[in-house]
């Protein structure tokens, strides 16, 4: 600190036997908005009316979570009906974070109807929806954007006719190809009947979503029960699973614990962070917002 009329330690003097503590400042810029494309694949067979209504009611919760996470997102919905060829439903069919009526659009799109005859081929229709070459959903999959596919069904996948005898592996291969193309993680979550016994609500029952759950677990996604009463909680979990946001900012050297002053976008932040002195880093409890300028001034541990 510089004091008026008193300039301390302005001259480096190798003759001085005891150097004062060395204070350094490091600056970071939080990553820009992470990009995520979320594809809902909703079972469109006759038993799904209640579940679709519950899902639609939780649409705003889901988008609120994405908004709170400051993700640059695109959300689309397709059905499990092979006749749909994976075309995204609704208007607009790609819902973005900038849309004023995103919740309403998503709620409408999630109600894909219940007129489809079996088979409910979720993996197959998801693969079609993600296939840029088909041109149906142009712009939905973005280079550099992560992918989160959410299957919602009271049955299990029945894509054998299109994906062969091992639809799980076939769909995992689709995700791997997507990861290679986008350079980002492709993840699956499943809102399905409990494995292995299925589940039952007052009005409906659900078969175990064995295949969907297996792929979700294989990709690090979450598995929720479609018989759960609280779809808002599911939406919150799904939205959270879509985020991958930096909270840790590595420092060049170990700081003296308690010595740091932290500013985010020029505003002093007194709490909500801590210094990792072992693996030197500034660690926030909650990620700073996108593009935030982060400044940390700290005393070097070696200089004490």
């Amino acid at each position, binding site marked *: *600190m*510089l*004091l*008026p*009329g*008193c*300039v*301390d*330690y*302005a*001259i*480096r003097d190798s003759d001085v036997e005891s150097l*004062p*503590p*060395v*204070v*350094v*400042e*490091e*600056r*970071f*810029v*939080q*990553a820009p*908005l992470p*990009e995520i494309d979320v594809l809902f694949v909703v079972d469109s067979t006759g038993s799904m009316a209640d579940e679709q209504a519950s899902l639609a009611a939780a649409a705003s919760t889901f988008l609120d979570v994405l908004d709170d996470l400051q993700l*640059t*997102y*695109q959300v689309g919905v397709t059905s499990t009906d092979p006749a749909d060829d994976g*075309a995204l439903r609704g*208007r*607009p*069919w*790609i819902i*973005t*974070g*900038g*849309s004023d009526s995103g919740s309403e659009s998503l709620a409408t799109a999630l109600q894909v109807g219940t007129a489809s005859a079996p088979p409910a081929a979720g993996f197959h229709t998801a693969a079609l929806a993600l296939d840029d070459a088909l041109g*149906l959903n*142009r*712009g*939905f999959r*973005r*280079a*550099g954007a992560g992918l989160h596919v959410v299957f919602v069904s009271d049955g299990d996948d029945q894509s054998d006719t299109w994906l062969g005898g091992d639809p799980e592996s076939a769909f995992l291969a689709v995700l791997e190809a997507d990861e290679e193309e986008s350079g980002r993680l492709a993840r699956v979550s499943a809102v399905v009947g409990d494995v292995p016994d299925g589940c039952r609500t007052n009005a409906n029952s659900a078969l175990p979503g064995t295949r969907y759950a297996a792929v979700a677990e294989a990709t690090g996604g979450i598995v929720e029960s479609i018989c759960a009463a609280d779809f808002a909680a599911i939406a919150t979990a799904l939205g959270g699973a879509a985020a991958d946001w*930096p909270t*840790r*900012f*590595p*420092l*060049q*050297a170990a700081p003296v614990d308690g*010595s740091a*002053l932290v500013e985010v976008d*020029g505003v002093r932040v007194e709490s909500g962070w801590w210094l990792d002195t072992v693996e030197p880093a500034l660690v926030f409890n909650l990620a700073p917002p996108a593009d935030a*300028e982060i400044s940390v*001034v700290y*005393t*070097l541990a070696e200089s004490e």
Partner: protein
Amino acid sequence: MSTLLLALAAVSGPAAAAPFVLYDLQMEDGGFVAEGDAHQWSWGVVTNGPGAGFDGTRAWSTGLTRDYLNDSVDTLEIPVPDLTGVARPTLSFQHWYDIAPGDHAWIEVDTGNGFVMATPLYGYPVTSGFVGASGGWRTVVLDLSPFGPAPRVRLAFEADLGGAADGWTIDDVAFHDGDVAAPRLSGLSGLVDTEDLEGPYVVEVDAEDDTLVSTVTLWWTTGSLTGWARMDSTGGGGWRGEIPAQSPGTTVNYWVEASDGLNTSREPVDAELEFRVYLPAPTDLLGPEGRIVGATVPLSWTPPESSHEVLGYSVLRGGLSVMEVIHPWAEVPILGGAEIFEVRALYAAGGGDLSVPLGLDGVVPVIHGLEPASAWPGETLRVRLGGEYLLLVKGEVVADLGPGVTITGVDVRDVDSAWLNLELEHDANAGHRNLTLHSADMTITLAEAFDVLPDTDRPRLTAIAPESVRQGDQAELSIDFVGALDAAPQVDLGDGLVVESVEQTDANTLVVRYTVATDAALGDRTVTVDDGVRVFDGVTLEVKDAFITTSRGCDTPASGGTIPGVALALVGLAGTLARRRPQAEAPPADSRPIPE
């Protein structure tokens, strides 16, 4: 008897003979006598067959409430008034019938030698009498002149062993003195839809009467216009009339009326015939399949087959013409949403019929705008593009803002938004610029999307006081500027100077509290003010040598400053630190060196 009316009134001029006895059968049964095997003639409210009488709820019928019975012959005798002195006695009644095959109905008259079949005017449908269905209420007229002053009249109905129907219902039975029979019309020619615009359209009909057909009139309507023409006799009961030429697209309704001077008939009795004068429509109107995104939609159709020359086509959207083209295809503007398209061929004589409509449901890409939407010449800035259904894809978007503005990069954020990096040439002319965006085979434009502002209005810094500072100083300076700030500004005084606070003291002055590093490099720095939208400059600040270069052991307590309680060795502060993004693996190569 309330149903008996005496025709006492004198008749002035030609008029149909009024009844001197009328049984309207609403309040009483008229004293008709029902006999026969099943006694199935009955009087009352009609719920079967016609569902009502001719002019009320009641009538006589063989099946008032149900189909008639089989294997029966039944009669209904009508009381005949004394016909003495009646010059031309005539019986008339209204009847409705639906008679099953094998069954029949007829009229009988007894002049003292027993009942025998009598033939009404214009005869029976078949020799055995009335069979099949009447097709509505019809009038029957029987001339009683040949039967003397006191004939007996009855209606006979015979049902065989199998099959039954609604039966025979009669109402409004009347006796007249005179001619009550209107001419009978038949064989009215039905005109078909025609491309003939010259006309006339010839109508023929046969007319007969028990006396003489005096006139036959052809009537027509075209919308609200009604016309008529006398028909000419062609001999042998035939008559011929003409409807004049009509415009294409005209629907003509027509009918014929015939009169014997007293009574008038019409054909069709309670309907009209119809034909259209038209020019044919294009066929096979087709549009794109699947999802439609664009400001226009391609439509094509098959030209009509016609003897008339097609000059072009009019394309209609929502019933309104939106364009005219020569070829059987067009790029038609759409509004978005569900819309109906039709095509009409244009002939020398006028527009033809509309094609079968085509429904399409499309969306129109729209650019909402740029933010910010203006800049001064020489500026470099980043503007946000937003819209709907733009289908933006990274690496596949080309944008243009016209002369003097170069778009150096397009950073697609999602399908509907992107950042555009702009460089305005120093000599760019002030004025509006239109934005043209090429995306997904679409070209989307937004007029006056961006303004190059007049250089004379450019916000800039005009003065700084003092114009120089010294190493180690901690004080205030003021900066004057012209223009308006969009937000709280950030002031950059250059390397080695820390801005501790900024206060806007009036509309065009900032007061900046600053600290100069003791080792800040000497010389001029460009001062900038960043209001979050753009960076102002225009003044410089000089750093001079400190008056005092050393002062050890100063024990002034820490107070104020940016980092209270921490001793600071300022070695090239913020200005020398480059920003970096957190990287989990990469070393922080661009952070400031740690002092040795």
